[in-house]
């Protein structure tokens, strides 16, 4: 199936009434969680995953993806109106978005954010449509050594970009690898690390880890912060939400910059929307004829990061769908969801599950239009969500967490684990250990061990075989370089600055 016929097939799937409905539900939920500080898309996807088990895989992944990219649209609203980012990917938007709002241009800032998100989000999906097929075709030649090397490369990138301390990123990853080893070894049926508990023979459910670390950990962090902020008034009426001609003219390059930067950074495992929004903002400021306007309410300072964090979605789905490598927490949960539905992300996904692959891609074109409609005229309505008291919201998150963790297995034991992982998520964030490497280590650990053991079986124990095959040798070399480069002082300072400026 070529790209054109694949996309046509995808639209036939995505335009089925039930899938349009799930796409709308995902976009709506995404916008809502994007607006609410303290609840991120990864936590929401983890919380809702158990409810999608009985759904058709195409409808399920369309909805989960809607939450993923919808949250990026919604995240800008709180950045602009409250100076508090709804999502980490909207941190940079605070800088100029809030300043525009203070100068009475809140409507224009919200409008620019929505338009930039739509333009760049659509460019990102076009990039995904065009790039995914050749990447998948290339990956068809991969065998166990290449997959092992690819996972090493992906995890190295995640460790590099997820936190200021490389050591803590690596330790978080190793913790994830250990957690995924708990249970029965599939090669030899040997029980590992079960602490005498027969209930652990089947391993720890991914849902319990994801909900605990993301949802419970995030709520505990928000309860500790306990900050209240004053919201700036939201202009009513579509006319008041449209930027004027000068503002749109100032944003021309920012739309393009955000689209390209966001997509390219998104393709890298670990890149993520937060990093891409920062880089796009940096580029915008560097090439601007008036860099002094940045930080004072420059419209392009809103358009570039908002465009980048939305174009990132299309990029992030390239390694997920064609190689089975997630680039962050949200995509790691989406990978687990696909596996639970019996869909195997990787080079064969396009031919084995065309409904899911092309249905998802096509739904993103539709979802971007839905989000533009939702986020322009309805933004005053969504802003009312910010008036929901936290003392109502947080118990609800606890309740949904319990339903999600208990629903997967029906065991109180898993609820105990949920509490444990919630505490782990909170302590990790207090001690500045990034959680993304832990989740990725947990998701990829099994496949990584299997690929390594199969590679060594193929070569009768010769470790050098991993570097004798050219593709795996190149990827392993890159992985080692990625972990060694921060030893260069200037590079590490640049890396740490990029991460800390993103909060």
């Amino acid at each position, binding site marked *: 199936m070529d790209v054109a016929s694949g996309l046509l097939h995808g639209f036939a799937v995505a335009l089925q009434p039930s899938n349009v409905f799930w796409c709308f539900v995902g976009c709506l939920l995404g916008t809502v969680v994007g607006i609410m500080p303290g609840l991120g898309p990864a936590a929401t996807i983890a919380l809702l995953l158990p409810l999608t088990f009985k759904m058709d895989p195409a409808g399920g992944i369309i909805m989960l993806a809607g939450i993923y990219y919808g949250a990026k649209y919604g995240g800008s609203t709180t950045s602009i109106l409250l100076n508090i980012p709804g999502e980490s990917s909207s941190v940079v938007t605070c800088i100029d978005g809030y300043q525009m709002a203070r100068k009475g241009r809140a409507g224009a800032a919200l409008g620019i954010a929505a338009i930039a998100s739509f333009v760049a989000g659509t460019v990102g999906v076009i990039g995904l449509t065009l790039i995914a097929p050749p990447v998948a075709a290339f990956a068809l030649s991969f065998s166990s050594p290449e997959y092992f090397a690819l996972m090493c490369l992906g995890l190295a990138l995640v460790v590099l970009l997820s936190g200021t301390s490389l050591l803590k990123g690596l330790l978080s990853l*190793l913790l994830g690898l250990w957690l995924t*080893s708990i249970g029965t070894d599939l090669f030899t049926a040997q029980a590992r690390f079960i602490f005498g508990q027969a209930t652990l023979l089947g391993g720890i459910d991914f849902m319990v880890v994801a909900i605990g670390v993301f949802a419970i950990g995030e709520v505990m962090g928000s*309860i500790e912060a306990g900050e209240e902020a004053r919201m700036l008034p939201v202009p009513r009426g579509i006319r008041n939400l449209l930027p004027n001609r000068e503002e749109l003219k100032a944003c021309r390059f920012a739309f393009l910059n955000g689209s390209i930067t966001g997509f390219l950074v998104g393709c890298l495992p670990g890149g993520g929307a937060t990093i891409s929004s920062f880089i796009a903002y940096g580029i915008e400021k560097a090439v601007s004829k008036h860099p002094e306007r940045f930080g004072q309410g420059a419209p392009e300072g809103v358009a570039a990061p908002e465009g980048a964090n939305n174009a990132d979605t299309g990029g992030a789905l390239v390694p997920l769908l064609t190689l089975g490598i997630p680039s962050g927490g949200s995509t790691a949960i989406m990978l687990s969801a696909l596996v639970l539905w019996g869909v195997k992300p990787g080079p064969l996904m396009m031919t084995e599950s065309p409904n899911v692959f092309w249905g998802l891609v096509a739904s993103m074109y539709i979802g971007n239009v839905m989000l533009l409609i939702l986020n322009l005229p309805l933004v005053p309505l969504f802003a009312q969500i910010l008036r929901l008291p936290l003392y109502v919201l*947080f*118990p609800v998150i606890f309740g949904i967490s*319990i339903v999600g963790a208990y629903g997967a297995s*029906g065991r109180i034991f898993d609820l105990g684990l949920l*509490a444990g992982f919630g505490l782990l998520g909170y302590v990790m964030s207090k001690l500045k250990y990034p959680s993304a490497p832990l989740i990725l280590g947990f998701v990829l650990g099994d496949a990584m061990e299997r690929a390594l053991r199969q590679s*060594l*079986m193929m070569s009768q124990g010769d470790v050098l075989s991993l570097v004798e095959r050219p593709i795996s040798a190149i990827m392993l070399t890159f992985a080692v370089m990625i972990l060694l480069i921060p030893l260069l002082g200037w590079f590490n300072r640049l890396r740490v600055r990029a991460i800390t400026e993103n909060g």
Partner: protein
Amino acid sequence: MLRWLRKGLVGQWMAFLKNGDVISGAVLAALGVYIVMQSRAWDYYTPDGPGPAFFPFWYGVAMVALSLLLVVSAARKGGEGQAVDWSASGRAMMTWLAFAVSIVLMEFLGFLISFALLTFFIVAVIFRRSLATAGIVAVASALAFHLVFPVALSVSLPAGPFGF
């Protein structure tokens, strides 16, 4: 002088122990040692290829090495700079404790009552709202959960002596 020196050293040692990187590094090093020790009880290599101990042994070794490196680098930077402020964690830890207790109670009282008690505690104690507000939010949210999940969606939740 000796007393001052001793006090200074003790102070530095205490700051070192309060250092989040030192404590987490030590805990992870202990976990790494446990992983390596456990993996020694399993086959490292079998006639078919690497055994169940192969992968855990190597990431356990890496965990010990990296966590010790973290402890050493924290010690070299000095204790004070890396100290974690746990004083602000009281509210979060109280919430977590209430959550953990509600899970224990769930086995005996079921979801509905335990969740209502948890909600009541969060609203009344953590957010310091009136008892009436806490009661209304607790009852309303517990009932809403019961109606949406077990009743409407047929999702099973822990049941208590009254069947819910």
